[in-house]
């Protein structure tokens, strides 16, 4: 492919790609995201390709593998375009029938359709599936339309139009637009993105860096995984626009090592973008040059913290440092650096294309746009949910998530991962909004939403998170390293029947120290799971300590048994 030397050439390429495509030709799209691969989707896609070849159907139907569209509960997902016939729980044995019945005769296979739980009616079209219908899938919706390893597919759906548009604007205009949109960081802290870009742009120094945080360390969160695996070009496009606005010529994408497919797909995307001249020297003839390198994480949750991530990029251990001087002024190698989360970058092309006015009409006063959540745990519809900010937790858990399976009762939902807090039933009317969630003692976090039913012990959950954090602490500062060590001892004791009077108070005292004295946010937010469970479920702690009983029936009290 020859390098595109102007926006005009980009459009010409796009037209030529679209011309070669027949929008009416049936296309079998098979989800090949990590989730569906665990269901055996690779075999299903291969089976389709083989059968199509064997039956000489290539002229009649295409087969395409796509990234994760989010309805992971029902994998492997197969959607037949252009009619959008939605088949779920597809297995290899279904392949011949799908070809002969649906492609061959135009018949729908009922047993593969989704059944609406409330009406018991079978749903044929993807857009009618209640799980998707109630979402606003501005970002993740594109996952269903493209093969993530094909830049042609990305161009066919309008990819890189935002870049072409942005290169005609001035950096100041772009930053203004992002500021006006109200976009706030999707990584957890919710810092206004436009402001961060502006600070980095204004910082002293010629060399500036633009970084994408794809470390996604919160266990149970996989929004970023699906975006990097399923639509890597959207992130690249966002980063190139950002780099142009900030005045940076070198970018890094830090991907967690536990996501090998994400690394592979992003590598392919970068190669393709470079081949097209969308990355590298003189992008689209604008005179702006920008390159991106991928670097892998080594398995450390703390490297999701910006200064630890940058230390890791420098080839050092992931030890955070004090942020009295912001990384926008002194970051990677001491240079001004703008770090944003995957989802934040993915929102940028949308904002440039549709404009800040359009974008800022979605969401709430303080939180604009949509947010993707990973709805997991004791929930009927496990998967990725994209909703406008302001949607209530109740809607997400019950209307979209389908409520709690096995006839059990909702107990709590954890947002914000190990840095977040438990939200009990009484607070389910809270809406997903940065400030509202923080006020309630939790936080938005990166988007992990773990639903727990009545058979979950809240003390055990506090112990789980504390154990996780103790293992992930870098060990540099005393409050986090020693504080979490001692908190874990206490929680282990309580769940094993060795809890004693005063344990809750000691946990609270330790929590206060971690919050005040920790060096970084890992330590200062580590008490949140403990504090929020004490706040909302103190009775469980007391039952464990005073009566040696676990109301949820989880803790086995080994210590008491041995006695």
């Amino acid at each position, binding site marked *: 492919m020859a390098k595109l030397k102007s926006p005009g050439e980009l459009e010409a390429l796009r037209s030529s790609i679209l011309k070669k495509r027949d929008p009416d030709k049936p296309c079998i799209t098979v989800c090949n995201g990590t989730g569906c691969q665990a269901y055996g989707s690779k075999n299903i896609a291969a089976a389709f390709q083989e059968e199509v070849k064997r039956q000489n159907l290539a002229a009649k139907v295409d087969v395409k593998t796509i990234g994760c569209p989010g309805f992971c509960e029902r994998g492997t997902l197969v959607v037949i375009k252009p009619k959008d016939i939605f088949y779920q729980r597809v297995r290899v044995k279904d392949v011949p029938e799908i070809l002969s019945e649906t492609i061959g005769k135009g018949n729908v296979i009922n047993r593969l359709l989704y059944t609406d739980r409330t009406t018991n009616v079978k749903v044929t079209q993807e857009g009618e599936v209640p799980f998707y219908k109630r979402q606003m899938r501005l970002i993740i919706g594109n996952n269903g339309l493209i093969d993530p390893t094909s830049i042609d597919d990305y161009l066919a759906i309008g990819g890189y139009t935002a870049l072409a548009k942005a290169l005609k604007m001035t950096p100041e205009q772009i930053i203004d637009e992002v500021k006006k949109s109200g976009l706030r960081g999707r990584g957890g802290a919710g810092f206004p993105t436009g402001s961060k870009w502006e600070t980095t742009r204004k910082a002293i120094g010629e060399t500036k860096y633009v970084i994408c945080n794809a470390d996604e360390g919160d266990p149970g969160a996989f929004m970023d995984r699906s975006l990097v695996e399923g639509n890597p070009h959207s992130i690249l496009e966002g980063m190139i626009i950002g780099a142009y606005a900030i005045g940076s010529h070198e970018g890094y994408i830090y991907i967690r090592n536990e996501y090998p497919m994400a690394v592979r797909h992003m590598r392919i995307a970068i190669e393709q973008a470079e081949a097209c001249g969308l990355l590298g020297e003189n992008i689209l003839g604008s005179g702006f040059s920008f390159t991106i390198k991928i670097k892998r994480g080594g398995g450390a949750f703390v490297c999701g913290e910006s200064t630890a991530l940058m230390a890791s990029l420098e080839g050092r*251990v992931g030890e955070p440092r004090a942020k009295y001087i912001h990384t926008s002024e002194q970051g990677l190698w001491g240079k001004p650096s703008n770090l944003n989360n995957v989802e934040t970058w993915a929102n940028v092309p949308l904002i440039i294309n549709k404009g800040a006015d359009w974008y800022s009409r979605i969401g709430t006063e303080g939180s604009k746009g949509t947010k993707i959540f990973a709805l997991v745990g004791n929930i009927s519809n496990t998967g990725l949910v994209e909703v406008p900010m302001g949607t209530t937790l109740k809607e997400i858990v019950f209307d979209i998530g389908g409520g709690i399976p096995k006839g059990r009762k909702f107990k709590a939902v954890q947002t914000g991962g190990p840095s977040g807090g438990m939200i009990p039933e009484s607070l389910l009317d809270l809406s997903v909004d940065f400030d509202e969630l923080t006020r309630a003692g939790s936080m938005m976090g990166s988007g992990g939403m773990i639903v727990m039913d009545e058979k979950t012990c809240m003390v055990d959950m506090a112990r789980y998170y504390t154990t996780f954090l103790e293992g992930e602490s870098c060990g540099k500062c005393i409050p986090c*390293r020693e504080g979490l060590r001692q908190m874990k001892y206490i929680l282990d004791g309580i769940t094993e029947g060795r809890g004693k009077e005063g344990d809750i108070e000691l946990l609270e005292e330790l929590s206060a120290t971690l919050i005040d004295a920790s060096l970084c946010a890992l330590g200062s937010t580590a008490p949140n799971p403990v504090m929020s469970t004490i706040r909302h479920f103190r009775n469980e702690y007391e039952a464990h300590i005073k009566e040696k009983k676990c109301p949820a029936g989880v803790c086995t009290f080994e210590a008491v048994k041995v006695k």
Partner: protein
Amino acid sequence: MVKLTINGRDIKADEGTTILYAARENNIYIPTLCSNEAVAPYGACRICLVEIKTARGRERLVTSCIYLVEEGLNVQTDTEKIRKIRRMLLELLLARCPDSEVVQDLTKKAGLEKTRFVEQTGNNKCILCANCARTCEEVVGVAAISLAKRGVEREMTTPFSEDFSEACIGCGSCSYSCPTGAISMEDKNRTRVIKWPHNTMEFKMKKCSVCGQYWAPEKQIEYIAKTSGTPLSDYDACPDCRE
């Protein structure tokens, strides 16, 4: 020059200095453990935390060893909140190193007799302040020891905790810089023995050609000769006899 207040006192300090430095210049005491003037500030022990209020009114807790002085900054070094935090940090540290006299002493000074927390066993006095590793890297330049592993497993050690390190020159700077005596150094007969928490090394000492004293490890002398580009023979006599 920057004007700020510390504990109500008006202080003037050069731009680019830390609160800790400014305080010390004005005889205001702020306790520290991981701070060492010879190396860059680390901010790990958190003992030097102070309460500040910026000129714009933002209140926060910061480590005085790292935070730079600002015009109009209001610093409090000994509030009830700070004392509580320090007490807790020392209580945690005492649980980590119950046998360390230095920690015991500091804890008593903070008004604590014992720790409520689970004590770690094994006569380990290392508080992981990393003074030793930082001195070895930043001052000596050989980086023979480092902090390995992470979290509660973190330890100060030579690579693979071997009783041998090619890089170590036996200078003992680590031992000097250690605030708790976790690294011991003893010159006995013709050998220097340095003991770290997880490994021990012995160094052959060089004999002075004049007075016969064993005055420094041979390895250290070789290193000095090499890096300064001077012949080894220049060091046949010890510093006292060289005049």
